[in-house]
């Protein structure tokens, strides 16, 4: 699954630490999400989408054939 988290975060002028603090996760989690190394839980995806006021599918892009068990 790809995402536009880094692009959206930077466009809002927010640092990784600030986003992590608000969402209640570690800064490493935000970094891993942005690098595509980790896929978030549905709860975290909702938290992110609500934080930025955008629908989930505008932030996270699901691609057919992606193995969900990865990450």
């Amino acid at each position, binding site marked *: 699954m790809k995402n536009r988290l880094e692009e959206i975060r930077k466009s809002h002028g927010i640092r990784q630490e600030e986003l*992590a603090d608000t969402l*209640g*996760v*570690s800064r*490493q*989690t935000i970094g891993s999400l942005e690098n595509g190394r*980790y896929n*978030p839980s549905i709860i*975290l995806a909702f938290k992110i989408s609500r934080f930025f006021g955008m629908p989930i599918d505008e932030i996270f892009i699901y691609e057919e054939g992606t193995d969900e068990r990865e990450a």
Partner: protein
Amino acid sequence: MKNKIGRFYLILGIITTICGLYMLLSFRTELFLDLGFSENICLLLGILGGVVFLLGCGLLSYYLILSTKLDKMAEIEEKDERNIAIRGKAAEILQLVTAGTNLILMIVFLILSLDTAALLLAGAMLIQIFISLAAFVYYNKKM
């Protein structure tokens, strides 16, 4: 306080404050350190004691200021979903390695004719499998 850095500052702060206080008291009353020091050494002890005491107080203040933040960070680290996933994967690998090691050990025990040890190990492995199955059934119903 779960954070190791916090504990480090706390312990260092307590030790430094006590040392500084001891040196200051020694300088002030000469009751605790009656070694017949010269006036200059006594003055140095007082100045050094003051500096060490202030340093200790500073470290303790630093610990108190940061403790809330560090506690929050430790809580986040513990509840962080990525960390939970990492711990889960590590546990999976550990389970596989443990099962493999137990199997190898059992074969070694059998080769060495240590039947009792092999039997005990087989029993322990059976209990592990039983608990694993019970946990699966429990969470299968719960989720």
